[in-house]
Protein backbone atom coordinates (compact mmCIF):
# COMPACT_ATOMS: atom_id res chain seq x y z
CA UNK A 1 0.00 0.00 0.00
CA UNK A 2 1.65 3.19 -1.13
CA UNK A 3 1.67 6.15 1.21
CA UNK A 4 0.37 9.66 0.68
CA UNK A 5 2.91 12.46 0.71
CA UNK A 6 2.70 15.49 3.04
CA UNK A 7 1.10 17.60 0.31
CA UNK A 8 -1.58 14.98 -0.23
CA UNK A 9 -2.23 14.77 3.51
CA UNK A 10 -2.49 18.55 3.78
CA UNK A 11 -5.03 18.56 0.96
CA UNK A 12 -6.89 15.74 2.67
CA UNK A 13 -6.99 17.67 5.95
CA UNK A 14 -8.48 20.74 4.24
CA UNK A 15 -11.00 18.56 2.45
CA UNK A 16 -12.10 16.93 5.69
CA UNK A 17 -12.46 20.33 7.37
CA UNK A 18 -14.56 21.51 4.42
CA UNK A 19 -16.84 18.47 4.76
CA UNK A 20 -17.17 18.63 8.53
CA UNK A 21 -17.29 22.40 9.11
CA UNK A 22 -21.01 23.02 8.48
CA UNK A 23 -22.00 19.88 10.36
CA UNK A 24 -19.88 20.80 13.38
CA UNK A 25 -21.19 24.37 13.34
CA UNK A 26 -24.81 23.20 13.45
CA UNK A 27 -24.04 21.07 16.49
CA UNK A 28 -22.02 23.84 18.14
CA UNK A 29 -24.81 26.41 17.77
CA UNK A 30 -27.29 23.91 19.19
CA UNK A 31 -25.37 23.85 22.48
CA UNK A 32 -25.12 27.63 22.92
CA UNK A 33 -26.98 29.20 25.85
CA UNK A 34 -27.86 32.52 24.16
CA UNK A 35 -31.26 33.14 22.71
CA UNK A 36 -29.76 34.34 19.44
CA UNK A 37 -27.11 32.98 17.09
CA UNK A 38 -23.73 33.50 18.65
CA UNK A 39 -20.47 31.88 17.80
CA UNK A 40 -17.93 31.82 19.33
CA UNK A 41 -19.83 31.36 22.54
CA UNK A 42 -18.83 31.29 26.18
CA UNK A 43 -21.32 28.89 27.67
CA UNK A 44 -22.75 25.49 27.14
CA UNK A 45 -26.41 24.70 27.47
CA UNK A 46 -29.01 22.13 26.58
CA UNK A 47 -31.84 24.65 26.64
CA UNK A 48 -32.40 24.47 22.88
CA UNK A 49 -32.71 20.71 23.01
CA UNK A 50 -35.26 21.07 25.81
CA UNK A 51 -37.03 23.72 23.73
CA UNK A 52 -37.81 21.14 21.04
CA UNK A 53 -40.40 19.60 23.39
CA UNK A 54 -42.35 22.86 23.31
CA UNK A 55 -42.73 22.54 19.57
CA UNK A 56 -44.92 19.49 19.11
CA UNK A 57 -45.03 20.11 15.36
CA UNK A 58 -41.39 19.02 15.12
CA UNK A 59 -42.06 15.90 17.14
CA UNK A 60 -45.16 15.07 15.12
CA UNK A 61 -43.25 15.59 11.89
CA UNK A 62 -40.49 13.31 13.17
CA UNK A 63 -43.00 10.58 13.99
CA UNK A 64 -44.69 10.94 10.60
CA UNK A 65 -41.31 10.83 8.85
CA UNK A 66 -40.46 7.54 10.54
CA UNK A 67 -43.81 5.99 9.61
CA UNK A 68 -43.61 7.29 6.07
CA UNK A 69 -40.07 5.96 5.58
CA UNK A 70 -40.90 2.57 7.12
CA UNK A 71 -44.10 2.06 5.11
CA UNK A 72 -42.85 3.33 1.77
CA UNK A 73 -39.56 1.42 1.88
CA UNK A 74 -41.34 -1.79 2.93
CA UNK A 75 -43.84 -1.53 0.07
CA UNK A 76 -41.03 -0.55 -2.32
CA UNK A 77 -38.98 -3.60 -1.38
CA UNK A 78 -42.10 -5.76 -1.78
CA UNK A 79 -42.41 -4.52 -5.34
CA UNK A 80 -38.68 -4.53 -6.03
CA UNK A 81 -37.90 -8.14 -5.08
CA UNK A 82 -40.13 -9.84 -7.68
CA UNK A 83 -39.25 -7.17 -10.26
CA UNK A 84 -35.52 -7.73 -9.65
CA UNK A 85 -35.94 -11.51 -10.00
CA UNK A 86 -37.79 -11.01 -13.29
CA UNK A 87 -35.07 -8.70 -14.62
CA UNK A 88 -32.17 -10.78 -13.36
CA UNK A 89 -33.19 -14.16 -14.70
CA UNK A 90 -35.56 -13.80 -17.64
CA UNK A 91 -34.92 -12.41 -21.10
CA UNK A 92 -38.25 -10.95 -22.12
CA UNK A 93 -39.60 -8.33 -24.45
CA UNK A 94 -39.29 -4.84 -22.93
CA UNK A 95 -36.92 -6.00 -20.21
CA UNK A 96 -34.59 -3.07 -20.71
CA UNK A 97 -37.44 -0.59 -21.02
CA UNK A 98 -38.94 -1.82 -17.75
CA UNK A 99 -35.57 -1.59 -15.99
CA UNK A 100 -35.10 1.95 -17.27
CA UNK A 101 -38.62 2.87 -16.14
CA UNK A 102 -38.04 1.49 -12.64
CA UNK A 103 -34.75 3.37 -12.33
CA UNK A 104 -36.11 6.57 -13.91
CA UNK A 105 -36.94 8.33 -10.60
CA UNK A 106 -33.16 8.60 -10.12
CA UNK A 107 -32.98 10.71 -13.28
CA UNK A 108 -36.13 12.78 -12.94
CA UNK A 109 -35.44 15.89 -10.83
CA UNK A 110 -37.35 15.70 -7.58
CA UNK A 111 -38.82 19.15 -8.21
CA UNK A 112 -40.45 17.76 -11.33
CA UNK A 113 -41.72 14.71 -9.45
CA UNK A 114 -43.09 16.97 -6.75
CA UNK A 115 -44.94 19.10 -9.30
CA UNK A 116 -46.23 16.03 -11.14
CA UNK A 117 -47.54 14.49 -7.91
CA UNK A 118 -49.06 17.77 -6.76
CA UNK A 119 -51.00 18.01 -10.01
CA UNK A 120 -51.90 14.32 -10.03
CA UNK A 121 -53.02 14.16 -6.40
CA UNK A 122 -55.04 17.35 -6.64
CA UNK A 123 -56.87 15.83 -9.63
CA UNK A 124 -57.66 12.52 -7.95
CA UNK A 125 -58.43 14.02 -4.54
CA UNK A 126 -55.39 12.80 -2.64
CA UNK A 127 -53.67 16.14 -2.12
CA UNK A 128 -52.24 16.71 1.31
CA UNK A 129 -53.01 13.15 2.42
CA UNK A 130 -50.63 10.74 4.11
CA UNK A 131 -51.52 8.14 1.48
CA UNK A 132 -50.28 10.55 -1.19
CA UNK A 133 -46.97 10.92 0.64
CA UNK A 134 -46.59 7.15 0.86
CA UNK A 135 -47.36 6.60 -2.83
CA UNK A 136 -44.92 9.28 -3.93
CA UNK A 137 -42.18 8.03 -1.62
CA UNK A 138 -42.57 4.47 -2.93
CA UNK A 139 -41.69 5.77 -6.37
CA UNK A 140 -38.68 7.76 -5.20
CA UNK A 141 -37.11 5.00 -3.11
CA UNK A 142 -37.89 2.00 -5.31
CA UNK A 143 -34.83 2.47 -7.57
CA UNK A 144 -32.50 2.29 -4.57
CA UNK A 145 -34.14 -0.91 -3.35
CA UNK A 146 -34.20 -2.36 -6.85
CA UNK A 147 -30.52 -1.73 -7.55
CA UNK A 148 -29.35 -3.54 -4.43
CA UNK A 149 -31.77 -6.47 -4.81
CA UNK A 150 -30.81 -6.72 -8.47
CA UNK A 151 -27.11 -6.87 -7.62
CA UNK A 152 -27.83 -9.67 -5.14
CA UNK A 153 -30.07 -11.54 -7.60
CA UNK A 154 -27.44 -11.62 -10.33
CA UNK A 155 -25.05 -13.34 -7.94
CA UNK A 156 -27.27 -16.36 -7.26
CA UNK A 157 -26.24 -19.76 -8.50
CA UNK A 158 -29.51 -20.97 -10.03
CA UNK A 159 -28.44 -24.59 -9.71
CA UNK A 160 -29.22 -24.36 -5.99
CA UNK A 161 -32.82 -23.53 -6.85
CA UNK A 162 -32.97 -26.28 -9.42
CA UNK A 163 -31.74 -28.69 -6.77
CA UNK A 164 -34.55 -27.60 -4.43
CA UNK A 165 -37.15 -28.06 -7.15
CA UNK A 166 -35.80 -31.44 -8.21
CA UNK A 167 -36.08 -32.49 -4.57
CA UNK A 168 -39.80 -31.73 -4.77
CA UNK A 169 -40.10 -28.20 -3.39
CA UNK A 170 -42.75 -26.11 -5.12
CA UNK A 171 -41.84 -22.67 -6.41
CA UNK A 172 -43.11 -20.82 -3.35
CA UNK A 173 -41.13 -23.02 -0.96
CA UNK A 174 -38.09 -22.63 -3.19
CA UNK A 175 -38.44 -18.88 -3.10
CA UNK A 176 -38.94 -18.68 0.65
CA UNK A 177 -36.35 -21.25 1.68
CA UNK A 178 -33.69 -20.87 -1.01
CA UNK A 179 -33.94 -17.71 -3.11
CA UNK A 180 -34.95 -15.24 -0.41
CA UNK A 181 -32.19 -16.21 2.04
CA UNK A 182 -29.67 -15.90 -0.80
CA UNK A 183 -30.74 -12.37 -1.76
CA UNK A 184 -31.36 -11.31 1.85
CA UNK A 185 -28.25 -9.07 2.11
CA UNK A 186 -29.49 -7.16 -0.91
CA UNK A 187 -33.04 -6.98 0.46
CA UNK A 188 -31.93 -5.68 3.84
CA UNK A 189 -29.46 -3.12 2.52
CA UNK A 190 -31.97 -2.10 -0.16
CA UNK A 191 -34.62 -1.52 2.48
CA UNK A 192 -32.22 0.50 4.62
CA UNK A 193 -31.12 2.71 1.73
CA UNK A 194 -34.77 3.18 0.74
CA UNK A 195 -35.67 4.11 4.32
CA UNK A 196 -32.89 6.72 4.52
CA UNK A 197 -33.79 8.23 1.17
CA UNK A 198 -37.42 8.50 2.15
CA UNK A 199 -36.57 9.98 5.53
CA UNK A 200 -34.26 12.62 4.01
CA UNK A 201 -36.42 13.50 1.00
CA UNK A 202 -37.37 17.18 1.04
CA UNK A 203 -37.55 18.56 -2.51
CA UNK A 204 -40.45 16.47 -3.73
CA UNK A 205 -42.22 16.26 -0.39
CA UNK A 206 -42.34 20.03 0.05
CA UNK A 207 -44.78 20.16 -2.88
CA UNK A 208 -47.18 17.53 -1.64
CA UNK A 209 -47.03 17.80 2.15
CA UNK A 210 -49.77 19.72 3.92
CA UNK A 211 -49.42 21.53 7.24
CA UNK A 212 -51.15 18.64 9.02
CA UNK A 213 -49.19 15.83 7.36
CA UNK A 214 -45.60 16.77 6.80
CA UNK A 215 -42.14 15.34 7.32
CA UNK A 216 -39.36 16.54 9.56
CA UNK A 217 -37.04 17.76 6.77
CA UNK A 218 -39.92 19.71 5.20
CA UNK A 219 -40.94 21.21 8.54
CA UNK A 220 -37.33 22.18 9.16
CA UNK A 221 -36.95 23.64 5.68
CA UNK A 222 -40.07 25.78 5.98
CA UNK A 223 -38.98 27.00 9.42
CA UNK A 224 -35.49 27.90 8.17
CA UNK A 225 -36.98 29.89 5.28
CA UNK A 226 -38.61 32.19 7.83
CA UNK A 227 -35.92 32.44 10.46
CA UNK A 228 -32.69 30.78 11.48
CA UNK A 229 -32.32 30.43 15.24
CA UNK A 230 -30.69 28.04 17.72
CA UNK A 231 -33.89 25.98 17.78
CA UNK A 232 -33.47 24.76 14.19
CA UNK A 233 -29.86 24.05 15.05
CA UNK A 234 -30.84 21.80 17.93
CA UNK A 235 -33.42 19.98 15.77
CA UNK A 236 -30.81 19.59 13.02
CA UNK A 237 -28.16 18.55 15.52
CA UNK A 238 -30.48 15.86 16.86
CA UNK A 239 -30.97 14.65 13.29
CA UNK A 240 -27.22 14.69 12.67
CA UNK A 241 -26.43 12.77 15.85
CA UNK A 242 -29.08 10.15 15.06
CA UNK A 243 -27.79 9.84 11.52
CA UNK A 244 -24.24 9.44 12.78
CA UNK A 245 -25.27 6.47 14.91
CA UNK A 246 -27.16 4.89 12.01
CA UNK A 247 -24.18 5.59 9.76
CA UNK A 248 -21.72 3.77 11.98
CA UNK A 249 -24.05 0.79 12.35
CA UNK A 250 -24.57 0.64 8.58
CA UNK A 251 -20.87 0.88 7.93
CA UNK A 252 -20.27 -2.09 10.21
CA UNK A 253 -23.10 -4.09 8.63
CA UNK A 254 -22.73 -3.36 4.93
CA UNK A 255 -19.85 -0.97 4.32
CA UNK A 256 -20.99 2.50 3.33
CA UNK A 257 -19.19 2.54 0.00
CA UNK A 258 -20.84 -0.71 -1.05
CA UNK A 259 -24.24 0.56 0.01
CA UNK A 260 -23.84 3.65 -2.14
CA UNK A 261 -22.17 2.03 -5.09
CA UNK A 262 -25.19 -0.20 -5.40
CA UNK A 263 -23.77 -3.62 -4.70
CA UNK A 264 -24.67 -5.65 -1.67
CA UNK A 265 -22.04 -7.28 0.47
CA UNK A 266 -22.67 -11.00 0.60
Amino acid sequence: MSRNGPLALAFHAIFVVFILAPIVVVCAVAFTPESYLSLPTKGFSLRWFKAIWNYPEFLRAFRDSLWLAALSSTIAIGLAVPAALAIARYRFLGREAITALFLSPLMIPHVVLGIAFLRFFSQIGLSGSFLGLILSHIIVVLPFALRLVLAASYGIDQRIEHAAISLGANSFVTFRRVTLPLIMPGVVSGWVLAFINSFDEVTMTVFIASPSTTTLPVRLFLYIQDNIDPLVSSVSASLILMTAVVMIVLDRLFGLDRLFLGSAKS
Partner: protein
Amino acid sequence: MTANPKLAPLLLSGPALLVFIGLVIAPLVMTALLSFYDWGQYKGIVAEFTVKNWHEVLVDDYYYEIFGRTLRIALFVTLIAVLIGVPEAYILNRMTPRWRGVFLLVVIGPLLISVVARTLGWALLFGSTGLIGQALLTLGLTREPVDLMFTETGVIIALTHVLVPFMVLAVLAALQRLNSDVENAAMSLGAPAFTVWRRVVLPQIIPGVLSGSVIVFALAASAFATPAIIGGRRLKVAATLAYDEFLNTLNWPLGAAIAMILLVALIAIIVGSNRLIERRYAQVFE
Protein backbone atom coordinates in the same frame (compact mmCIF):
# COMPACT_ATOMS: atom_id res chain seq x y z
CA MET B 1 -38.48 -21.03 -9.98
CA THR B 2 -39.27 -22.75 -13.21
CA ALA B 3 -42.61 -21.21 -13.99
CA ASN B 4 -43.67 -20.46 -17.54
CA PRO B 5 -40.77 -18.35 -18.89
CA LYS B 6 -43.16 -16.17 -20.89
CA LEU B 7 -45.64 -15.44 -18.14
CA ALA B 8 -43.35 -15.43 -15.10
CA PRO B 9 -41.45 -12.17 -15.75
CA LEU B 10 -44.71 -10.40 -16.48
CA LEU B 11 -46.28 -11.63 -13.25
CA LEU B 12 -43.17 -10.80 -11.24
CA SER B 13 -42.66 -7.29 -12.55
CA GLY B 14 -46.38 -6.63 -13.11
CA PRO B 15 -47.17 -5.02 -9.73
CA ALA B 16 -44.24 -2.61 -9.91
CA LEU B 17 -45.05 -1.89 -13.55
CA LEU B 18 -48.65 -0.98 -12.76
CA VAL B 19 -47.54 1.27 -9.92
CA PHE B 20 -45.05 3.04 -12.18
CA ILE B 21 -47.53 3.52 -15.00
CA GLY B 22 -50.06 4.94 -12.58
CA LEU B 23 -47.69 7.02 -10.47
CA VAL B 24 -44.86 8.09 -12.79
CA ILE B 25 -46.10 8.12 -16.35
CA ALA B 26 -49.61 9.38 -15.65
CA PRO B 27 -48.55 12.31 -13.42
CA LEU B 28 -45.80 13.34 -15.85
CA VAL B 29 -48.17 13.25 -18.82
CA MET B 30 -50.69 15.30 -16.84
CA THR B 31 -47.99 17.84 -15.99
CA ALA B 32 -46.94 18.05 -19.63
CA LEU B 33 -50.58 18.70 -20.59
CA LEU B 34 -50.93 21.23 -17.79
CA SER B 35 -48.10 23.29 -19.28
CA PHE B 36 -50.36 23.95 -22.30
CA TYR B 37 -53.30 25.13 -20.18
CA ASP B 38 -54.33 28.73 -19.81
CA TRP B 39 -54.11 30.61 -16.52
CA GLY B 40 -55.30 33.97 -15.25
CA GLN B 41 -55.04 35.69 -11.92
CA TYR B 42 -58.80 35.62 -11.38
CA LYS B 43 -59.98 32.78 -13.58
CA GLY B 44 -57.37 30.26 -12.36
CA ILE B 45 -56.45 27.25 -14.49
CA VAL B 46 -58.50 26.92 -17.65
CA ALA B 47 -58.30 23.78 -19.79
CA GLU B 48 -57.78 25.60 -23.07
CA PHE B 49 -54.86 24.82 -25.30
CA THR B 50 -52.28 27.60 -25.43
CA VAL B 51 -48.54 27.85 -25.95
CA LYS B 52 -48.28 31.11 -24.04
CA ASN B 53 -46.55 29.54 -20.99
CA TRP B 54 -43.87 28.03 -23.18
CA HIS B 55 -43.58 31.23 -25.13
CA GLU B 56 -43.20 33.25 -21.95
CA VAL B 57 -40.57 30.95 -20.43
CA LEU B 58 -38.54 30.68 -23.61
CA VAL B 59 -38.62 34.35 -24.61
CA ASP B 60 -38.73 36.44 -21.44
CA ASP B 61 -35.34 37.73 -20.25
CA TYR B 62 -36.32 37.15 -16.63
CA TYR B 63 -36.50 33.36 -17.18
CA TYR B 64 -33.42 33.43 -19.36
CA GLU B 65 -31.47 34.92 -16.49
CA ILE B 66 -32.69 32.27 -14.07
CA PHE B 67 -31.98 29.35 -16.40
CA GLY B 68 -28.59 30.89 -17.16
CA ARG B 69 -27.81 31.19 -13.46
CA THR B 70 -28.91 27.58 -12.86
CA LEU B 71 -26.60 26.39 -15.64
CA ARG B 72 -23.70 28.53 -14.39
CA ILE B 73 -24.06 27.29 -10.81
CA ALA B 74 -24.29 23.66 -11.94
CA LEU B 75 -21.19 24.02 -14.13
CA PHE B 76 -19.12 25.64 -11.38
CA VAL B 77 -20.23 23.06 -8.82
CA THR B 78 -19.30 20.24 -11.20
CA LEU B 79 -15.92 21.81 -11.97
CA ILE B 80 -15.02 22.32 -8.30
CA ALA B 81 -16.27 18.85 -7.43
CA VAL B 82 -13.89 17.43 -10.07
CA LEU B 83 -10.99 19.57 -8.87
CA ILE B 84 -11.31 18.59 -5.22
CA GLY B 85 -13.17 15.26 -5.44
CA VAL B 86 -10.76 13.47 -7.79
CA PRO B 87 -7.60 14.10 -5.73
CA GLU B 88 -9.48 13.24 -2.54
CA ALA B 89 -10.64 9.91 -3.99
CA TYR B 90 -7.07 9.20 -5.08
CA ILE B 91 -5.75 9.99 -1.60
CA LEU B 92 -8.44 7.85 0.05
CA ASN B 93 -7.61 4.98 -2.24
CA ARG B 94 -3.95 5.12 -1.23
CA MET B 95 -4.65 5.01 2.49
CA THR B 96 -4.30 1.88 4.56
CA PRO B 97 -7.64 0.05 4.79
CA ARG B 98 -8.21 1.13 8.38
CA TRP B 99 -7.78 4.85 7.73
CA ARG B 100 -9.69 4.59 4.49
CA GLY B 101 -12.62 3.10 6.41
CA VAL B 102 -12.58 5.97 8.89
CA PHE B 103 -12.36 8.72 6.28
CA LEU B 104 -14.88 7.13 3.97
CA LEU B 105 -17.30 7.49 6.85
CA VAL B 106 -16.35 11.17 7.14
CA VAL B 107 -16.49 11.93 3.42
CA ILE B 108 -19.44 9.80 2.28
CA GLY B 109 -21.35 9.70 5.55
CA PRO B 110 -22.77 13.24 5.13
CA LEU B 111 -24.82 11.88 2.20
CA LEU B 112 -27.01 10.25 4.83
CA ILE B 113 -27.55 13.52 6.69
CA SER B 114 -30.53 15.58 5.62
CA VAL B 115 -29.64 18.21 3.01
CA VAL B 116 -31.54 20.76 5.09
CA ALA B 117 -29.31 20.18 8.12
CA ARG B 118 -26.14 20.40 6.02
CA THR B 119 -27.27 23.57 4.29
CA LEU B 120 -28.23 25.11 7.62
CA GLY B 121 -24.57 24.73 8.61
CA TRP B 122 -23.52 26.86 5.65
CA ALA B 123 -26.20 29.42 6.41
CA LEU B 124 -24.70 29.69 9.91
CA LEU B 125 -21.15 29.98 8.53
CA PHE B 126 -22.10 32.57 5.93
CA GLY B 127 -23.76 35.84 6.79
CA SER B 128 -22.03 38.96 8.02
CA THR B 129 -21.91 37.67 11.59
CA GLY B 130 -21.05 34.12 10.52
CA LEU B 131 -17.73 32.50 11.31
CA ILE B 132 -16.34 32.91 7.79
CA GLY B 133 -16.98 36.65 7.81
CA GLN B 134 -15.50 36.99 11.30
CA ALA B 135 -12.42 34.93 10.42
CA LEU B 136 -11.72 36.96 7.29
CA LEU B 137 -12.05 40.20 9.27
CA THR B 138 -9.78 39.00 12.07
CA LEU B 139 -7.17 37.77 9.63
CA GLY B 140 -7.26 41.18 7.99
CA LEU B 141 -8.06 39.65 4.61
CA THR B 142 -11.11 41.86 4.22
CA ARG B 143 -12.08 45.25 5.61
CA GLU B 144 -15.81 44.87 5.19
CA PRO B 145 -17.64 41.93 6.71
CA VAL B 146 -18.12 39.37 3.95
CA ASP B 147 -21.66 38.13 3.57
CA LEU B 148 -22.04 35.09 1.36
CA MET B 149 -25.74 34.64 2.10
CA PHE B 150 -27.94 35.27 -0.95
CA THR B 151 -24.94 35.16 -3.28
CA GLU B 152 -24.14 32.82 -6.13
CA THR B 153 -20.74 32.08 -4.56
CA GLY B 154 -22.49 30.98 -1.38
CA VAL B 155 -24.86 28.68 -3.28
CA ILE B 156 -21.93 27.20 -5.21
CA ILE B 157 -19.92 26.50 -2.05
CA ALA B 158 -22.84 24.90 -0.21
CA LEU B 159 -23.93 22.84 -3.22
CA THR B 160 -20.38 21.62 -3.80
CA HIS B 161 -20.31 20.48 -0.20
CA VAL B 162 -23.61 18.65 -0.59
CA LEU B 163 -22.66 16.95 -3.88
CA VAL B 164 -18.90 16.32 -3.81
CA PRO B 165 -19.32 12.92 -2.04
CA PHE B 166 -20.95 11.60 -5.23
CA MET B 167 -17.84 12.54 -7.17
CA VAL B 168 -15.55 10.88 -4.62
CA LEU B 169 -17.69 7.72 -4.79
CA ALA B 170 -17.67 7.56 -8.59
CA VAL B 171 -13.92 8.10 -8.84
CA LEU B 172 -13.20 5.70 -6.00
CA ALA B 173 -15.15 2.99 -7.82
CA ALA B 174 -13.03 3.58 -10.92
CA LEU B 175 -9.81 3.57 -8.87
CA GLN B 176 -10.70 0.27 -7.25
CA ARG B 177 -10.96 -1.35 -10.68
CA LEU B 178 -7.38 -0.28 -11.41
CA ASN B 179 -4.61 -2.81 -11.43
CA SER B 180 -1.95 -1.43 -9.10
CA ASP B 181 0.71 -3.50 -10.90
CA VAL B 182 0.53 -1.09 -13.84
CA GLU B 183 1.23 1.82 -11.49
CA ASN B 184 4.12 -0.05 -9.92
CA ALA B 185 5.50 -0.91 -13.35
CA ALA B 186 5.52 2.77 -14.32
CA MET B 187 7.27 3.67 -11.08
CA SER B 188 9.85 0.90 -11.40
CA LEU B 189 10.61 2.21 -14.86
CA GLY B 190 11.56 5.50 -13.23
CA ALA B 191 8.46 7.65 -13.75
CA PRO B 192 8.01 10.33 -11.06
CA ALA B 193 4.82 10.17 -8.99
CA PHE B 194 3.10 12.97 -10.89
CA THR B 195 3.85 11.41 -14.27
CA VAL B 196 2.46 8.08 -13.07
CA TRP B 197 -0.70 9.87 -11.98
CA ARG B 198 -1.04 11.84 -15.21
CA ARG B 199 -0.10 9.16 -17.74
CA VAL B 200 -1.24 5.95 -16.05
CA VAL B 201 -3.91 6.61 -13.44
CA LEU B 202 -5.80 9.56 -14.88
CA PRO B 203 -6.59 8.07 -18.31
CA GLN B 204 -8.08 5.01 -16.64
CA ILE B 205 -10.31 6.87 -14.20
CA ILE B 206 -11.65 9.43 -16.71
CA PRO B 207 -14.88 7.43 -17.20
CA GLY B 208 -15.42 7.50 -13.43
CA VAL B 209 -14.78 11.24 -13.37
CA LEU B 210 -17.21 11.77 -16.23
CA SER B 211 -20.00 9.69 -14.73
CA GLY B 212 -19.44 11.45 -11.41
CA SER B 213 -19.68 14.78 -13.25
CA VAL B 214 -22.97 13.81 -14.85
CA ILE B 215 -24.45 12.92 -11.46
CA VAL B 216 -23.17 16.10 -9.79
CA PHE B 217 -24.27 18.31 -12.67
CA ALA B 218 -27.76 16.82 -12.82
CA LEU B 219 -28.25 17.13 -9.07
CA ALA B 220 -26.81 20.66 -8.97
CA ALA B 221 -28.97 21.87 -11.85
CA SER B 222 -32.14 20.55 -10.21
CA ALA B 223 -31.15 21.28 -6.59
CA PHE B 224 -33.88 22.90 -4.55
CA ALA B 225 -33.34 23.03 -0.78
CA THR B 226 -29.79 24.42 -0.85
CA PRO B 227 -30.41 27.29 -3.31
CA ALA B 228 -33.70 28.02 -1.56
CA ILE B 229 -32.02 28.43 1.84
CA ILE B 230 -28.73 30.06 0.77
CA GLY B 231 -30.03 31.94 -2.29
CA GLY B 232 -33.36 32.89 -0.81
CA ARG B 233 -36.02 34.63 -2.85
CA ARG B 234 -33.49 37.07 -4.25
CA LEU B 235 -31.39 34.50 -6.06
CA LYS B 236 -33.75 32.17 -7.87
CA VAL B 237 -32.75 29.06 -9.80
CA ALA B 238 -34.97 26.89 -12.00
CA ALA B 239 -36.16 24.66 -9.16
CA THR B 240 -36.99 27.49 -6.74
CA LEU B 241 -38.66 29.38 -9.59
CA ALA B 242 -40.96 26.41 -10.28
CA TYR B 243 -41.69 26.18 -6.55
CA ASP B 244 -42.69 29.85 -6.39
CA GLU B 245 -44.95 29.53 -9.42
CA PHE B 246 -46.70 26.55 -7.86
CA LEU B 247 -47.00 27.53 -4.22
CA ASN B 248 -46.86 31.33 -4.18
CA THR B 249 -48.02 32.74 -7.51
CA LEU B 250 -50.24 29.69 -8.07
CA ASN B 251 -49.61 29.88 -11.82
CA TRP B 252 -49.46 26.10 -12.18
CA PRO B 253 -49.36 25.97 -16.00
CA LEU B 254 -46.31 28.24 -16.09
CA GLY B 255 -44.66 26.22 -13.30
CA ALA B 256 -45.40 23.04 -15.25
CA ALA B 257 -43.69 24.49 -18.34
CA ILE B 258 -40.60 25.33 -16.25
CA ALA B 259 -40.59 21.80 -14.81
CA MET B 260 -40.87 20.27 -18.27
CA ILE B 261 -37.94 22.33 -19.57
CA LEU B 262 -35.85 21.25 -16.59
CA LEU B 263 -36.84 17.61 -17.10
CA VAL B 264 -36.21 17.50 -20.83
CA ALA B 265 -32.92 19.40 -20.60
CA LEU B 266 -31.57 17.21 -17.82
CA ILE B 267 -32.60 13.89 -19.35
CA ALA B 268 -31.08 14.97 -22.66
CA ILE B 269 -27.83 15.87 -20.90
CA ILE B 270 -27.72 12.69 -18.81
CA VAL B 271 -28.61 10.28 -21.60
CA GLY B 272 -26.44 12.11 -24.13
CA SER B 273 -23.33 12.19 -21.97
CA ASN B 274 -23.80 8.60 -20.81
CA ARG B 275 -23.94 7.50 -24.46
CA LEU B 276 -20.84 9.52 -25.20
CA ILE B 277 -18.93 8.11 -22.22
CA GLU B 278 -19.90 4.56 -23.05
CA ARG B 279 -18.94 4.88 -26.70
CA ARG B 280 -15.68 6.71 -26.07
CA TYR B 281 -14.54 4.49 -23.22
CA ALA B 282 -16.23 1.22 -24.12
CA GLN B 283 -13.04 -0.74 -23.53
CA VAL B 284 -12.71 0.51 -19.95
CA PHE B 285 -16.12 -0.83 -18.99
CA GLU B 286 -15.39 -4.36 -20.16
